[in-house]
């Protein structure tokens, strides 16, 4: 009898492990495709010489769709199309920023370092969570409050325009987004996130924010800003 319960328990654990692996695989696959798509829309935007305000409008549009439209379609295949719409829009918004950096001396070096740095941070942190299988769910409240405080500081700095404060905000954003990578990946591998569409958009946002913040830090510290 005990043996029966034990094998039922093992069967359930195996099914859960398979389900978690499936969510993880689908998340990384969709993430890779959306990043490629963002790269494509960013290139299109650069070729079209879009004005700087494109970035602001794209980010606002992307965030509104992510907050109000995506949750309604996250459990259907239409959700995949909406993820591509959001990531394509954010990539398109990156075009003018990349054009601006590309036009300054050493700008292409800054862009390549930011791109490579973002990739190393994301892969390193993901590998850390997958290898240690630590549970980072305790970080949730801390990261959200930290993120809100950074947003308040960012609002203030829009009008204050202090370069040192911009640098500090970018550094804190990278720390917080790194925390979100640990938290979100840990949620997937512990069965807390079973929707790969929502998992993808969460991880994409962290990568996007790390890339933008690294660009800003390297741009300021590179002395070419």
């Amino acid at each position, binding site marked *: 009898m005990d043996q029966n319960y034990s094998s039922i328990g093992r069967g359930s654990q195996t099914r859960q492990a398979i389900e978690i692996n499936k969510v993880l695989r689908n998340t990384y696959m969709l993430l890779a495709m959306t990043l490629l798509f963002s790269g494509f829309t960013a290139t299109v935007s650069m070729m079209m010489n879009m004005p*700087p*305000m494109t970035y*602001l409008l794209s*980010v*606002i549009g992307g*965030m509104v769709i992510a*907050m109000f439209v995506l949750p309604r379609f996250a459990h259907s295949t239409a959700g995949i199309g909406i993820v591509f719409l959001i990531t394509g829009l954010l990539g398109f918004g990156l075009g003018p920023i990349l054009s601006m950096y590309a036009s300054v001396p*050493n700008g292409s*070096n*800054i862009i390549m*370092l930011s791109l490579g*740095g973002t990739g*190393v*941070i994301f892969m*390193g*942190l993901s590998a*850390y969570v997958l290898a*240690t299988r*630590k*549970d*980072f*769910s*305790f*970080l*949730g*409240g*801390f990261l*959200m*409050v930290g*993120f*809100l405080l950074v*947003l*308040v500081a*960012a*609002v203030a700095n*829009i*009008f204050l325009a202090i370069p040192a404060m911009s640098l500090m905000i970018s*550094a804190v954003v*990278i*720390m917080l987004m*790194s*925390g979100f990578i*640990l938290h979100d990946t840990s949620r997937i591998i512990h069965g807390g996130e079973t929707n790969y569409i929502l998992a993808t958009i969460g991880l994409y946002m962290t990568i996007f924010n790390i890339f933008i913040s*690294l660009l800003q*830090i*390297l741009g300021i*510290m*590179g002395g070419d800003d």
Partner: protein
Amino acid sequence: MESDIDMDWMKIVAAMALIMFIIFLFPRARHMMENSPKGSSSDWMGFIVPILVILLFIMLLVQLV
């Protein structure tokens, strides 16, 4: 002159968007604060160590620019 007006307009729109985002996120942040499990000191060390490594890595990138 026209470019200054454009910049002011963009600043105001960016600030409004960020404020709306803060208002939207605030209830979620409060919910997560109240419902997140508490981490032990070893849990926090497992977070702090990789973050310090990331900081060092960023300093390395700055040196490479």
